């Protein structure tokens, strides 16, 4: 079966709505299907992977740690909008250090997070076969 390119478009933060966690659940299932998977974080979606989330005060599950598992499933293309970060007073340093081990490069640990311009996200999006939005 031909490999298709799947993009997951994340535009909302994590706890105000269920979309973020249920999107992540799809991504984890998608890993089993050996397709080409990219995640895009734009708008308030960038808050999904901000470092230091703590849900003790709201009685909800803190699933942010699950993003660390993506690298083990070879999901390592997480594109974050530079403009979205900047508008929100955030920088790449505010994001969780999500990594993967590159099997083509002696299992060197590399960052899965790529901060890119909206123009670059546009180019990446143009190459997708399927775009899931939540």
């Amino acid at each position: 079966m031909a490999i298709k390119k799947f993009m997951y478009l994340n535009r909302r933060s994590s706890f105000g709505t269920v979309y973020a966690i249920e999107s992540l659940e799809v991504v984890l299932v998608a890993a089993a299907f050996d397709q080409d998977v990219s995640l895009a974080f734009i708008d308030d979606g960038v808050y999904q992977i901000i470092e230091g989330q703590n849900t003790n005060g709201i009685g909800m599950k803190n699933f942010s740690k699950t993003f660390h598992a993506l690298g083990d499933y070879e999901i390592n293309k997480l594109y974050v909008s530079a403009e979205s970060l900047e508008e929100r007073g955030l920088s790449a340093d505010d994001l969780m250090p999500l990594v993967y081990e590159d099997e083509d490069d002696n299992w060197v640990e590399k960052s899965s997070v790529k901060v890119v311009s909206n123009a670059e996200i546009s180019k990446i999006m143009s190459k997708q076969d399927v775009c899931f939005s939540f």
Partner: protein
Amino acid sequence: MLHTVNKSSFERNSLKSCINTIDDTSVILLIEDGVISATKNINSSMIANLANQGRVYALQGDVEARGVSSKLVDNIKLVDYTGFVDLVVEHGTSVSWV
């Protein structure tokens, strides 16, 4: 690509984000409350240029439901649900800015 936007540009940022991200060959289809963005209003400049290029569609049923048929920005193309299907078929990957 076909990009659908289903919320008003007054209520949400989805149309703005869509426009910031699409490439030069993409078209936009405004559906549901998204058709409010097809009307002449203070946000119209967001889509006027794309509309002049023939790249903005709006779902006719939603336009009529909201009573704004006579208030549309120039060169918005109206389609029915069959036209929506045809846009999906013609333009490859669909992206929903929900």
